[in-house]
């Protein structure tokens, strides 16, 4: 799900140790160290920002609400969390991570160079995870100039392989997030009604997720009878006969889940109802096809078969048919007709279908575990 990125993570900031125990986080660290060793590296840097920080959160359970952060993991020294910000915010950061050594920075390149040197890594081979996609290029140039003898090697593929083994916390948190979404759709069913202000309705939907401990909430919706594509919410009064596509994402304890439903305002019209039914059927077909060993293209093909209309499929594909989801809101594997990605057992998949036919529109979607 891609929608407007907020200026700050809005929700609850804490570490639920019952859901994500320290022992499990320690075992993740050991998994990472094994991967570092297998790659022949001396250390890995995990980098992320407020929008994309899954790798960082996996190893540290920390996530930046704004700006960026990094974690340095070596083979034997205690890991170090580096957070963009001033020292006075340090006390509020420590309770969010199990890692004791947390340091603040104003410049990621300067701080990383300093820490690499301090840890005796100024001439080492160091893997990076998340850096290529998110690290600011100018800061990266400054870093490589500051520690010219460090050999940086992207290890995103190695980390993705490691992450294929979902652990107990992954599944427990995914289930919690799914329940929060179900409750939010129940609220939606009561507040999306003729005459309602969309601002007021979406505020209530978001409130339900925030009260359940959401760290972040994302909403996409249709813009009204004349703008029946998905878009960030805008204020309008719902009218009898409107269709509202509601696409929700929620982050609980660093774990994203998403789902989508179509709501008829007042009496549903036959065309919209038919389209919504076809969207749900296509998602059902994708879920049935999403088994371990299947390719992303096979899952997408199931949607095509269920829809039986290449025009509808082309429109649905413009929003994407699905993707992996977890500590990043969009992850591998990709669900698309040309996707060669292979599904593993225990993969969290977000599946969605957006349809438009003339003035009618519909959406269906859910997060599943293969």
């Amino acid at each position, binding site marked *: 799900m*891609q*929608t*407007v*990125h*907020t*200026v*700050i*993570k*809005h*929700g*609850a*900031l*804490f570490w*639920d140790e019952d859901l994500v125990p320290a022992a499990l986080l320690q075992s993740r660290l050991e998994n990472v160290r094994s991967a570092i060793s297998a790659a022949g590296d001396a250390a890995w840097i995990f980098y992320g*920002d*407020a*929008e994309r920080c899954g790798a960082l959160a996996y190893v540290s359970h920390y996530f930046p*609400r*704004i*700006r960026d952060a990094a974690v340095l993991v070596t083979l034997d020294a205690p890991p170090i969390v580096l957070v963009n910000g*001033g*020292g*006075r*915010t340090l*006390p*509020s950061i420590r*309770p969010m991570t199990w890692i004791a050594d947390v340091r603040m920075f104003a410049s990621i390149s300067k701080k990383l160079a300093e820490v690499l040197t301090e840890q005796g890594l100024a001439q080492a081979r160091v893997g990076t995870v998340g*850096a*290529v*996609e*998110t*690290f*600011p*290029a*100018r800061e*990266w140039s400054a870093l490589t100039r500051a520690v010219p003898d460090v050999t940086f090697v992207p290890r995103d593929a190695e980390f993705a392989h490691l992450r294929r083994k979902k652990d107990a916390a992954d599944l427990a948190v995914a289930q919690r997030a799914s329940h929060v979404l179900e409750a939010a759709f129940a609220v939606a069913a009561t507040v999306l009604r003729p005459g309602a*202000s969309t*601002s*007021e309705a*979406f*505020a*209530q939907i*978001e*409130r339900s997720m*925030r*009260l359940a*401990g959401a760290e972040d909430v994302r909403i996409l919706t249709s*813009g009204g009878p004349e*703008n029946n*594509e*998905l*878009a*960030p919410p805008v*204020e309008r009064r719902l009218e009898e006969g409107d269709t509202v596509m509601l696409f929700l994402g929620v982050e609980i304890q660093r774990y994203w889940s998403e789902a989508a439903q179509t709501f008829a305002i007042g009496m549903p019209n036959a065309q919209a109802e038919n389209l919504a039914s076809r969207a749900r059927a296509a998602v059902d077909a994708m879920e049935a096809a999403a088994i371990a060993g299947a390719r992303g293209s096979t899952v997408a093909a199931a949607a095509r078969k269920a829809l039986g209309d290449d025009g509808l499929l082309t429109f649905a594909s*413009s*929003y994407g048919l699905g993707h992996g989801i977890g500590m990043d809101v969009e992850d591998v594997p990709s669900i698309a007709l040309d996707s060669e990605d292979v599904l593993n057992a225990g993969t969290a998949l977000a599946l969605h279908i957006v349809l438009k036919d003339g003035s009618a529109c519909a959406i269906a979607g859910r997060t599943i575990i293969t």
Partner: protein
Amino acid sequence: MILDDPVLVSETELRGRLDRVRAEMAKKKIATLAVYDSAQHDMTSMDELFYLTDFYAVGPCWLVLQLEGRPTLFVSPAWDAPRAKRLVSHADVVPADAKGLMQAAAGALAQASPPFALCGGDALSVRAAESFAGFALPGENEIIPRLAAVKSPAEVARIARAAEIADAGFATLCQVARVGLREYELAAEVEATMKSLGASDNFGLIAGGSHNTAVRGATERRLEAGDVIVGEITPAFAGYHAQLCRTFVLGEPTPKTVENFNILIEAERRAFAAALPGQSSSAIAEAANQVITDGGYGEFCRPPYMRTRGHGLGRGSVLPGDLDPEGGPTLEEGMTFVIHPNQYFPDTGYLMLGDTVVIERARPRVLTKTPAKLFWRAV
């Protein structure tokens, strides 16, 4: 629900902004300006692409602006292009997927006239820079913030609406805060009020404790009797933020808390008095610091006991930037920012007071209307 129509920035105003930017480009001998927006929105940064288009991006976007002709807006994800086309009539909108965006922008530059300049290049990631041949172009990050420093009436109206929403958010905080409520539940209620009034976003920090060292994000902690709740409430309306900083005590405040808060009230009053056109923005910080120093807390007028005495608020220009005593830009009529003498006191902890203002000739106009006082409720 605020029933007024959304505050619109007219196409005429947007075209005027483009004309002024082009005039400055010509002075600097820039024929083509490439403006990048990573869509990672930041409350304390300007969004130059938003300023020139009034389009709030979902994904990374480029605006390629030449001295003549219609600008081109490259929009990702591609499915968001219809929204861009509806909202941006003064530019050609080109949809692009995430992988193709950088090549599309680079291709447009290849067709455009040199010399080039790049705005927003600091936000380009390693991957994006690899795909964008213009990464090494000279940076130009001064023209637009400078031109936008003085807000238009429509921009001020948006900020005023955001301020009105912030007031409502704090009123909810005062109404809902109770012993046993979790901090994040309180934050959720405050934000629900503001979203229902049309807030599109909020930079929200709400924290409670008997002795706060700073404001922070809301945690799972349950509020207790005697808690001092500090709130930095920063809703956005139509992209523009306003900020309200206030303190609420769950129970009768101690005499020392009242005394220290009165120092903040006087510091803010003096800071307002220094916020005049033609003055250096540093005068605001100096005025606030002097009051706190006179109150006996001068040694705490520095980080980590405070951060700054105020700052600009995005998405428009954030000039004058942070309000620090070390010097800053000269204030001009029509600049908007928050003034907040928020301060840690060793005997009471961190207390907050701050308001959004617009600089006017005789005195700043305070857009937030919540009274400047210490709020509390008996428990």
